[in-house]
């Protein structure tokens, strides 16, 4: 059996409140194989984004066992988790989260600078990605000079530039109109076809249809796993 990319066992996250503990996640068990395209769905407050932050190693305050490529994340300190995260994981957010006072080129360079890629190699990697995403003409523009769709395209490019094994996308089309949203989803699909594992959080059945399976969360519990309904042709919004 091939090595699992992600194995979560009894993951719990809770906040202390006056009446005791408030659980955001409860006994979450999830396995993700390399190359999968997984969707996490559920009502607001179900714990979807929290689960994504834990998988992405941004959130370290939880209990349970988390193995990433057979390595025990639950036993790691912040530094070790950071090493794993910057080596394997790229993020895409609903509100793009580009850095406003940096150009497109400089934004794309950030993840590489934290991986200690030498300057000359950084430039060639960024140029490659600009070319691949057809945004060479935008490289000297600032994020506020781009449309929402273009900003998200840059944000996906930024996640892809360091060739991650896993891309985590938190409602990546939530701020986009349907046409732009669809373009971003097709981009994810192509990245997935090329071997990148993708985990997305979405409210949209249509976006979920791009994936292999859906993990349904409610009140912090995984209630079931379903197969996505095949996308109907052309009707309904992308969000």
């Amino acid at each position: 059996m091939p090595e699992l990319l992600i194995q979560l066992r009894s993951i719990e996250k809770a906040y202390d409140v006056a009446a005791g503990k408030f659980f955001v996640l409860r006994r979450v068990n999830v396995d993700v194989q390399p190359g999968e395209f997984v969707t996490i769905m559920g009502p607001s407050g179900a714990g979807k984004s929290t689960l994504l932050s834990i998988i992405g190693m941004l959130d370290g305050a939880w209990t349970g066992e988390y193995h990433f490529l057979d390595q025990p994340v639950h036993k790691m300190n912040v530094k070790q988790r950071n090493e794993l995260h910057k080596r394997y994981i790229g993020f895409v957010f609903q509100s793009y989260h580009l850095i406003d006072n940096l150009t497109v080129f400089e934004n794309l360079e950030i993840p590489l600078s934290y991986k200690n890629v030498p300057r000359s190699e950084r430039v060639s990697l960024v140029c490659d990605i600009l070319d691949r995403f057809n945004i060479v003409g935008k490289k000297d523009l600032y994020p506020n000079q781009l449309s929402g769709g273009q900003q998200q395209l840059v944000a996906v490019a930024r996640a892809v530039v360091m060739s991650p094994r896993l891309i985590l996308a938190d409602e990546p089309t939530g701020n986009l109109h349907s046409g732009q949203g669809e373009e971003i989803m097709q981009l994810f699909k192509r990245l997935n076809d090329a071997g990148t594992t993708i985990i997305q959080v979405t409210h949209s059945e249509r976006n979920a249809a791009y994936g292999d399976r859906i993990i349904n969360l409610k009140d912090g519990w995984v209630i079931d796993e379903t197969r996505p309904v095949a996308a109907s042709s052309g009707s309904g919004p992308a969000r």
Partner: protein
Amino acid sequence: MSSRLSGILLGSFAGLALALAAAGIYGVMSYAVTQRTQEIGIRVALGASRANIFRLVVRDAVLLLGVGIAIGLVGALYLPRFLSTQLFQVGATDPMIFVSVPAILAAIGLAASLLPARRATSVDPVVALRME
């Protein structure tokens, strides 16, 4: 006014100015870190370590100090000639003063920026990224 009294007065004003400068730099750096909380969250999500974030903030402080000290030095070269009658046992352009005062200022400025830089490293990326 005796020259001793004016010396004490000048000395205490200089000390006060130094304390104000330190408080000012601390305030500015603190504010800058608060303003950049979301950016810090984004950088952490893109792989920045605590050391990277610390350096980011301290580098800004060094830049700010550099500019401040350069402006101060230019001012110090031209203004003291109007004060030269008040100076005792020190020239208006004493090299010793021109080295030691910027060094003391830089040290105080750096020290004042360390606390905000430390605070920047403890920004919770999950919270920072939720800010709009």
